[in-house]
């Protein structure tokens, strides 16, 4: 249990002796999963702020804060994975320009800045009102967050609006770069025939959109449920429509990638074939494709093609979203872990089972996945997610604006 490379529990055929270690473990499964949720949630908010999909208004601001909560934890699995996390910052101080990995710090930071700025500008009027109501510590917090400005004149709000549109517009390509880039970290590894495909960034990006939308649906409906408030069904129906669209693209590309490999049948395919029908059979064919892609696909198709009742939407939307969240997690697992199961000997593969208590085991993974939710809860104490709780919105509504 040295925690740097998990040791495989067995091998089929001949694996190179060093390949009996799975170097990128659960943590590296979570890393693209979390950044994907970040990118996807941002896209949801941009659909409202940039593409003016009005129905998404109730969740537009929430999506951004949701993205921030996950973004705050995106580096945790990486830091936990590194053998020398204390040197991690060197990736930004002395990056190697040829490394696909060296750009992460920059892309991550730039994206974080855009996201935080967008949130602050969107919430500025609210924060100003809250500051006036608050006392003591919270007043200081709001003072800092409202960037020291309490100008709520229509001119200044108009300027805010322009800045928000700009940031949201800028955020779309950045979210795409953030996650397309994560796909490239894998797609650029020529030594691994499962990863080395130009489609990898595309697949990562599409699955990111899918997981973000699904995550927002689940979180929104869950919070409404515990708050005992009605969900905005028009909003959910719209989300489901986008989820369907992105999922069709996502699933098609995932299958196309496999199909192209199989059709071209280079000598790599023979190794891949062994893998997909060997160690990955259950997690790929049965779980990722069979249960968590095909079933959600039919549910989504049903929900979008037929005008179904509100009760059914309320039931199916979280179910299908949870299934999709699981599909994306499985996809990350099958790519990250699956890719490493195949030895570069092209003659064998290894079997890997994560352990509960290892440094990069299941328990740390669960903790890392729960943390964003804790952060989200803390953020909810500062930023009112919903219009109903927002003193600025309700105040201006009362004054007839």
């Amino acid at each position: 249990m040295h925690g740097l490379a998990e040791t495989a529990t067995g091998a089929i055929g001949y694996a190179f002796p060093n390949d009996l270690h799975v170097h990128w473990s659960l943590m590296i499964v979570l890393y693209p999963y979390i950044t994907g949720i970040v990118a996807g949630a941002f896209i949801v908010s941009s659909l409202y702020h940039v593409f003016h999909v009005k129905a998404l208004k109730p969740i537009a601001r929430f999506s951004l804060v949701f993205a921030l909560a996950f973004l705050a934890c995106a580096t945790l699995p990486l830091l936990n994975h590194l053998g020398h996390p204390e040197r991690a910052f060197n990736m930004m101080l002395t990056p190697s320009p040829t490394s696909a990995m060296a750009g992460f710090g920059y892309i991550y930071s730039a994206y974080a800045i855009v996201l935080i700025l967008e949130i602050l500008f969107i919430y500025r009027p609210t924060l100003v009102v809250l500051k006036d109501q608050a006392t003591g510590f919270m007043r200081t917090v709001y003072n800092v967050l409202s960037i020291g400005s309490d100008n709520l004149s229509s001119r200044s709000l108009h300027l805010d609006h322009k800045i928000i549109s700009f940031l949201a517009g800028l955020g779309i390509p950045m979210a795409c770069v953030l996650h397309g880039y994560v796909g490239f970290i894998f797609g650029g590894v020529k030594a691994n025939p499962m990863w080395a495909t130009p489609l990898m960034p595309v697949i990562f990006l599409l699955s990111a959109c899918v997981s973000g939308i699904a995550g927002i649906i689940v979180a929104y409906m869950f919070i409404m449920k515990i708050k005992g408030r009605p969900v905005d069904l028009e909003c959910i129906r719209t989300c489901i429509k986008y989820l369907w669209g992105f999922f069709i693209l996502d699933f098609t590309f995932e299958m196309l990638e496999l199909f192209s490999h199989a059709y071209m049948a280079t000598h790599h395919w023979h190794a891949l074939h062994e893998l997909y029908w060997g160690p990955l059979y259950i997690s790929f064919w049965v779980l990722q494709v069979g249960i968590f892609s095909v079933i959600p696909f039919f549910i989504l198709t049903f929900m979008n093609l037929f005008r179904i009742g509100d009760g059914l939407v309320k039931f199916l939307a979280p179910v299908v979203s949870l299934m999709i969240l699981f599909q994306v997690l499985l996809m990350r697992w099958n790519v990250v872990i699956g890719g490493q199961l195949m030895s570069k000997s092209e003659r064998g593969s290894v079997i890997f089972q994560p352990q509960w208590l290892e440094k990069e085991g299941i328990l740390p993974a669960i903790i890392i996945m729960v943390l964003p939710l804790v952060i989200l809860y803390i953020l909810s104490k500062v930023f009112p997610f919903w219009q109903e709780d927002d003193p600025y919105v309700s105040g201006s509504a009362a004054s007839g604006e």
Partner: protein
Amino acid sequence: MMDAIQSEISRDRRAFIKKVLGGTIAGSLLLVIPAGAMDVPEQIPGMREQEGPFIKGKKFVFIVDITRCIGCGSCCVADKNEYQVPDGNYRTWVERYVIDDHDNVYVDSPNGGLDGYQKPRTDIPHPVRDTFFVPKLCNMCEKPSCVQVCPVGATYQTKDGFVLIDQKRCVACSYCVQACPYSVRFINPKTKTADKCTWCYHRVRKGLLPACVNVCPVQARKFGDVNDRNSEVYKILHQPHVVSVLKPGMGNKPSLHYVGLRREVV
């Protein structure tokens, strides 16, 4: 002399070489002896006159002769002792290939060949047609993908063509491990950094052959300067031998060549 060398290399950021010349790498007692006082004969001609941390005017290649290897594992033992390689990780290993008369290929490398191949395989259903051993180690690629991907420049290629790892910089992200097509890298659980075969750079720098080359009883491992027309490696590479490299399609351009490489070998 030692001080002069040390002050020269201290200008260089590569901690590894510092360590090498400072003699802190395990097993290399010779390194604490001042260079002039070495009484072990020079094995690589012209190395001891070299000044500065890098070797000038030479191009080193490693050659493995598959037709000679007897699978005794001496090289693996020498390597493990030289570097205190932690169990379960391999800087070099020896594979056994067995081909039966149905053309099935069986490969194994129990414990990396460290214990030698003393017993034949008993699990092969058909009569054996052919069998041979293949030692593996770092290919010292001219276009190393490990160097390309390292985010902090901890894995680097020296001016004299070696691919080395700076243990003081490595963050152990394992990206290089993923990127090496030959699986020669591992994360050393003791140092928590990437590790791999160095072709015994510290020995070579002192005019000695790599430890594994030194111990091979049948000269299946050869090392030398291909710019030196009198060297054995020059002759092998320039005479009509069957010479090839591993996974040429990867585009890594290995400096490790195999004599008598068989098509079954990956």
